[in-house]
């Protein structure tokens, strides 16, 4: 089982994706989806050195994603307002540092996706030689607020999801 299905998540995602793109549940498409979903991970799993993530606590994940969605919409309107009505030289956009505790690569990838999808913030990099994240914020008013939001709203659920021990 382990040899045939090295990456159950990739398999499931590919299966669903094939059916989604073709928009059908006919036997032929199901068979083709199955072949692709088993075959592609067999060929590509040596390229990925990390094992699949073990997602625990789907509830926390759901809460995190819904918070991120609200945040995306809210900051989208903020950014639109600034672009339309504020004079560009009044906008205080700058880099800032945020200390991180998260270590799991999947968690970091997801954190960077969430931060970058939110308009108004761009993840630059984790500064080499330290555990600090360089972040560029479009309109920075309160540095501490950003640190607190990212630490408590984004990072803590991710630590729970990816590094929290046994499934809840």
């Amino acid at each position, binding site marked *: 089982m382990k040899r045939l299905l090295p990456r159950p998540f990739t398999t499931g995602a590919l299966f669903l*994706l094939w059916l*989604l*793109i073709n*928009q059908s549940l006919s036997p032929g498409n199901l068979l083709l989806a199955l072949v692709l979903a088993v075959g592609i991970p067999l060929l590509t799993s040596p390229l990925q050195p990390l094992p699949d993530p073990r997602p625990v606590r789907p509830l926390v994940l759901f809460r995190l994603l819904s918070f991120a969605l609200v945040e*995306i*919409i809210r900051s*989208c309107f903020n*950014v*639109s307002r600034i*672009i*339309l009505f504020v004079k*560009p*030289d009044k*906008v205080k*956009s*700058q*880099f*800032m*540092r945020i200390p991180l505790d998260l270590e799991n690569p999947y968690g970091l990838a997801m954190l*960077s*996706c969430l*931060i*970058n*999808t939110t*308009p*108004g913030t*761009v*993840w*630059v*990099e984790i*500064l080499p030689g330290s555990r600090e994240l*360089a972040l*560029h914020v*479009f309109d*920075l008013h309160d540095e501490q607020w950003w640190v607190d939001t990212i630490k408590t709203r984004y990072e803590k659920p991710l630590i729970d999801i990816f590094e929290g021990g046994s499934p809840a």
Partner: protein
Amino acid sequence: MNGVENLPAWVALPVSFLLILGGCIIFIGALGLLRLPNFYQRIHGPAIAITLGAGCLLIASMLYFSVLQSRIVIHELAISIFILMTAPVVSMLLMRAAVYRDLRAGKHDTGAESGDVYRLPAEK
């Protein structure tokens, strides 16, 4: 435009609303790209067009085709998921390229130094 005439009002209204909203957001995003003064601010303009503008249009498309063909048409979800996964990668790489290039070129007026995270190499 076949079958549009008998589209019920409860779907025509949200589709129109989403289309107009998405159009406005895309317009504002591109305006930001054109009008903001430096690169580090400009990169935030298209971000709203890509996430929310494309999201609005894709939801409108899903709704429209689902009702028009009276079956569930959700394959636009594939595009949404793809955009949500790739747009962050693009903006992160671009940001990194800009920071490295500005630091290496040693230009002072680019805004790369704001916030004291990155410092230009000392003048010799």
